């Protein structure tokens, strides 16, 4: 059942038709979660005992940083399946995830720098966490660059897929960078424990923001993938048919 569905999804035409009906729902969900998360985080959640109001950038920085790693894992898995099974849908997931992931990574880096100046006293240090996250940005940009440098989209997907898969090595390095080496960046927050290191009044809005970023990622990925599908299949009959209907 599950495999049959996945197999059908691997057809570009079927994916295009199936994904279309999810967009309005996911867009609505994203907006609701974003508004709720921002309002809760910026207006209702209390100030921090140590950092005062400055800490509120956490509600953007942490979800963006989580997404920067999550999107990479999705991209690497898609790259892996694209390399071995040559499924067109996973090829498209790789190239579209690369753009979205680069955006989340840049957001995490920029908000981190803006947070660093008032708390640490510096925008940037060549700290293990900061450096490995910067490498993540370069990996994403590398996948984008390889993909757009090669004319034939299938060859482009294969080569950029290899970088996407190899780069996954960086993900555990980012996660454990604050444990393996001493750093300026704070240690990882302990959220799944009896006494989480973030007080519930701050943790709940943070989790809402994390959900909002997830929903935003999915809706963005679907929209971008549909564009890419139309472009790749522009010479097929079903796309020509679709364009006739729209016009």
């Amino acid at each position, binding site marked *: 059942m599950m495999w049959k569905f996945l197999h059908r999804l691997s057809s570009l035409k079927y994916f295009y038709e199936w994904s279309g009906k999810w967009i309005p729902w996911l867009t609505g969900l994203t907006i609701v979660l974003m508004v709720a998360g921002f309002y809760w985080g910026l207006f209702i959640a*209390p100030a921090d005992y140590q950092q005062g109001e400055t800490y509120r950038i956490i509600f953007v920085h942490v979800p963006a940083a989580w997404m920067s790693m999550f999107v990479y894992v999705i991209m690497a898995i898609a790259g892996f399946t694209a390399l071995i099974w040559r499924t067109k849908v996973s090829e498209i997931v790789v190239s579209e995830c690369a753009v979205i992931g680069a955006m989340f990574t840049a957001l995490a880096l920029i908000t981190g720098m803006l947070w660093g100046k008032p708390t640490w*006293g510096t925008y940037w240090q060549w700290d293990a966490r900061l450096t490995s996250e910067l490498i993540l940005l370069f990996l994403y940009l590398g996948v984008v660059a390889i993909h757009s440098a090669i004319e034939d989209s299938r060859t482009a997907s294969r080569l950029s897929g290899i970088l996407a898969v*190899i780069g996954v090595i960086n993900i555990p*390095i980012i996660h454990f960078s604050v444990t393996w*080496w001493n750093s300026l960046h704070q240690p990882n927050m302990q959220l799944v424990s009896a006494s989480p290191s973030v007080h519930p009044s701050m943790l709940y809005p943070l989790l809402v923001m994390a959900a909002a970023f997830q929903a935003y990622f999915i809706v963005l990925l679907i929209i971008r993938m549909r564009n890419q599908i139309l472009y790749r299949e522009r010479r097929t009959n079903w796309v020509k048919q679709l364009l006739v209907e729209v016009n």
Partner: protein
Amino acid sequence: MRAKRKQRLIFVVVLLVGFSVAVALSLYAMRQNIMLFHTPSQVISGEVPENRLFRVGGIVVSGSVIKAEDGLTTEFGLTDLNHSITVRHTGLLPDLFREGQGIVAQGSLNEGGIFVAQEVLAKHDENYMPPEVAASLNKQGTFRPNQPQG
């Protein structure tokens, strides 16, 4: 699984394992350089570079902060809970600088064994809570911020 796919699978797995080993070995070889700072214990045992700037990190010893007459120079003890050294800094300190706080200072040792810092950065930990909660934890004596890290 068709033979062609199996071949591709082996290729990707070998590539990934090969790169992982290469990265792990390089990171292991560079582990001292990746460390952002040295500890006061390392300073005392002489495991720090001479004639060049380095960073030292630790906790500001409670009750050790002395402001000089000029209003800009600060002297304080820095500890990793085993050993402590004296740090002197002239200039602005970050807002989070206070006694009991984790900090990272960049500078070098002078002849007197005092670490003369050109820059002092403040660390903060992964605990976030409202001031009232911190105050009540403080009262109960269960509040242990800024445990030594790294």
